């Protein structure tokens, strides 16, 4: 058994580490695709300017080639970003399986759209065709951006939920510790500790209100990019306030423990 144990531990570590390696890998791939997109977009702009300036057949052909490359790379970039979100969702342990499944299905739908959009690009034969194909993505872009923001909000909520779960465990254990050792405290001190426990629970309630607000705002995300940005800013504000309530509650718990530590 002693000989097997190191190998067993190594196996367990290898099982756990790919979870983090996957999202890191997805992030590196996203950054790589973004760099490629910047290059192809820059080439596209140069060829477009030349075509608009000279209007020759050669410049038109070059502009068409560069446009197709740029459109392909654009879809690749957006797809890489959605895969990154998917990996982050998988890593978020604070989300329930239903919630995770909901957002992952949204991401899969968007990835399918991008794949079907990419399939149209090889058949582009003119600049007009390229404009039409690009417009298909443009008309869907707001929905894509809303899905992205909903997923980001869900990932943040998952992280906060994990902290709140730890918070609840500590509060329950603290309450049990106080109730089991009431004889050590004077009646006045018992009253103070009970009042403090209520205030700690109150912070947890305020946190819950904020996270419920975030879920409500996230489910109604829609509109053009500026409107989505405004709504997302409101979501960020509520997430920050929820975190702040948890921080204040944990500070109260620390005070509670200091009071328990000393007799008076």
């Amino acid at each position, binding site marked *: 058994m002693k000989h097997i144990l190191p190998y067993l531990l190594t196996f367990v570590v290898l099982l756990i580490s790919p979870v983090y390696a996957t999202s890191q890998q997805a992030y590196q791939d996203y950054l790589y695709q973004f760099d490629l997109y910047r290059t192809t977009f820059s080439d596209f702009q140069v060829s477009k300017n030349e075509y608009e300036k000279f209007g020759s057949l050669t410049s038109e052909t070059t502009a068409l080639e560069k*446009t197709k490359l740029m459109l392909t790379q654009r879809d690749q970039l957006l797809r890489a970003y959605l895969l990154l979100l998917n990996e982050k969702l998988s890593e978020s342990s604070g989300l329930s399986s239903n919630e995770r499944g909901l957002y992952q299905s949204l991401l899969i739908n968007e990835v399918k759209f991008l794949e079907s959009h990419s399939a149209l690009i090889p058949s582009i034969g003119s600049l007009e065709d390229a404009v039409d194909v690009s417009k298909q993505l443009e008309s869907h872009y707001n929905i894509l951006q809303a899905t992205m*923001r909903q997923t980001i909000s869900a990932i943040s909520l998952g992280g906060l939920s994990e902290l709140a779960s730890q918070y609840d465990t500590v509060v329950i254990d603290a309450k049990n510790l106080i109730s089991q*050792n009431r004889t050590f405290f004077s009646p006045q001190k018992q009253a103070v500790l009970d009042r403090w426990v209520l205030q700690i629970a109150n912070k947890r309630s305020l946190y819950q209100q904020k996270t419920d607000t975030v879920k409500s705002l996230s489910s109604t995300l829609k509109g053009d990019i500026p409107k989505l940005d405004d709504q997302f800013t409101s979501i960020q504000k509520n997430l920050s306030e929820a975190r702040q309530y948890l921080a204040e509650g944990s500070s109260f718990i620390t005070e509670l423990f200091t009071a328990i530590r000393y007799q008076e």
Partner: protein
Amino acid sequence: MEEIPQTQNTQPPDASVVPQHPVINGKPGKPKTLIAAIIAVALGTLIVLAYQPIKGIQTVVAPTPTPISQATPTPIRAVSAIATQSAFLSLESSIASLSSSIQAFTVLDPSLTPPILDLTLKFNRK
């Protein structure tokens, strides 16, 4: 200043001889007045010079000693019996870990900022 020699003069003064007196500022002045003036100026200067150091000494104020406060010892609080329990110690480390996790939590992961792309192609043909 040379004193004018006092000679006994029994004969009446000679009208042709003009007695010699010191001239001050182009005008003839009495020697005694001059001496007195010089002495007065000298005395006044000495008095002024003597006054300055005294004045300086008078303006020096001895520093007042800083009052030494008596340090009071920190009151020792009696530790309750609960503080030595394993449940308490375990919980204490849990809350410390939770507090640091909350402080370190980033509300929005900056690596997840969505890419904002310029989608319109806009070919302006000649």
